[in-house]
């Protein structure tokens, strides 16, 4: 009796192992496919398999804390995001071929200027070619730090749960490096001000992180409803 029970368990384990191996293999394969993808915004496009694989897979998770990453800056120097540790960050993922990304630039410049010297830094992450970004940054007089990458920047986007990204998207962190919000789509001044006010509340410990996230979600929803109505 006992041995039959064990056999059942052993059988179940073998099946589970088989399924686990299948899923694992799928995940590994998907990861290797993703590395083949061409950077966004170029004439030859990312592999379509990537999109499909993502839709079939479990949804990627927005990290609770700012992940560590390094990309080259405008001068070609490798720069770690840790360089700004201890500051609240507004990390804006964008590309020069993307119209809403371009439209956001003046707002980001204003935010950067308004918050200068107040422990908040705006950082651009351009998923694009260096030459194009340099030319654009010069033309639009971008003064806040911009990190640039192609495949490596796509990998950074994936670290934020945006493995098959659409642009722009903006990540807000508090000074402890906790990810407070990830805003997908074109950011406008009222939304940015609202999220940053919650970041300030967090920094001054007037509010806890889950509370801040809930407040941001509710506030953004109300703003969207107001706009739609």
């Amino acid at each position, binding site marked *: 009796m006992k041995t039959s029970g064990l*056999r059942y368990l052993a059988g179940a384990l073998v099946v589970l192992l088989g399924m686990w191996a299948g899923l694992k293999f799928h995940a590994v394969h998907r990861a290797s496919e993703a590395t083949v993808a061409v950077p966004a915004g170029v004439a030859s496009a990312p592999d379509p398999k990537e*999109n499909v694989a*993502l839709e079939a897979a479990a949804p990627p998770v927005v990290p609770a804390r700012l992940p560590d990453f390094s990309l080259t800056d405008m001068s070609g120097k490798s720069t770690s995001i840790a360089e700004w540790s201890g500051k609240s960050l507004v990390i804006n993922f964008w590309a020069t071929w993307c119209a809403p990304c371009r439209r956001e630039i003046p707002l980001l410049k204003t935010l950067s200027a308004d918050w200068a010297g107040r422990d908040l830094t705006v950082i651009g992450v351009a998923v694009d070619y260096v030459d194009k970004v340099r030319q654009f940054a010069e033309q639009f007089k971008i003064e806040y730090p911009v990190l640039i990458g192609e495949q490596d920047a796509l990998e950074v986007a994936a670290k934020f749960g945006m*493995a098959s990204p659409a642009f722009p998207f903006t990540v807000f962190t508090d000074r402890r490096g906790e990810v407070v919000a*990830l805003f997908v789509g074109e950011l406008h001044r009222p939304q940015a001000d609202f999220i940053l006010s919650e970041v300030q509340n967090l920094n001054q410990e007037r509010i806890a992180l889950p509370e801040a996230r809930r407040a941001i979600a509710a506030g953004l929803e109300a703003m*969207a409803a107001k706009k739609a109505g």
Partner: protein
Amino acid sequence: MSRGWRPYAAATKVPAMKRSVGAVSLALLLVFLLGPAGGAQAKPWWMRGIDSNETDFLPPDVAFRVSARIDGNVVKVRWVIADGYYLYRQKFEVRAESPDLLIAAPQLPTGTLKTDPYMGTQQVYTQQVEAIVPYSRIDAGAHPLQIKVTYQGCAEAGLCYPPITKVVFPTVGSATVVTSEPPYPWESTAIIGGAAAFLLAGLVLRKGRKLDMPV
């Protein structure tokens, strides 16, 4: 899958303890199977944010639906574009994917002009667009006809998708068709692996039992 287990357990009149072990295994299996699948369908990536900080943007394959059909000596590739979304005319690309296929430059209708202060004026398509692609085949159709299309678009609400490339298999005749991705090599491996795992499980479980085989 669970059906295969249940009658077997019932037919062999397993004692209570065995049944409970079987039930636990079954439950484990179900949890294992349904857990990740349910999670994946609950909230796709483009709709989730932190907590309920969600966005309402459509996934690219829903915003832009592509299909293709053969009409005489042309392939008609059609995109149906969701309300509030658009495709850039200058970003369209059509290439032959089958080795024996020769295609001419696609004919695209004139788009509507869209002016963006930060992007300039560009032709875009909304609602739907059809590209007419003249083609000829060197070996009279020994290979299935495959065309690779690239397109790029955005949502009016302020989101742009990177260029999307798809291989389409145009069919002869009216409307319907299939756009498809190349098959995944892992699929067959996963199926064979799963089958092997079940076979192994079956072997483990039948040990000590006689098979009811005809003599």
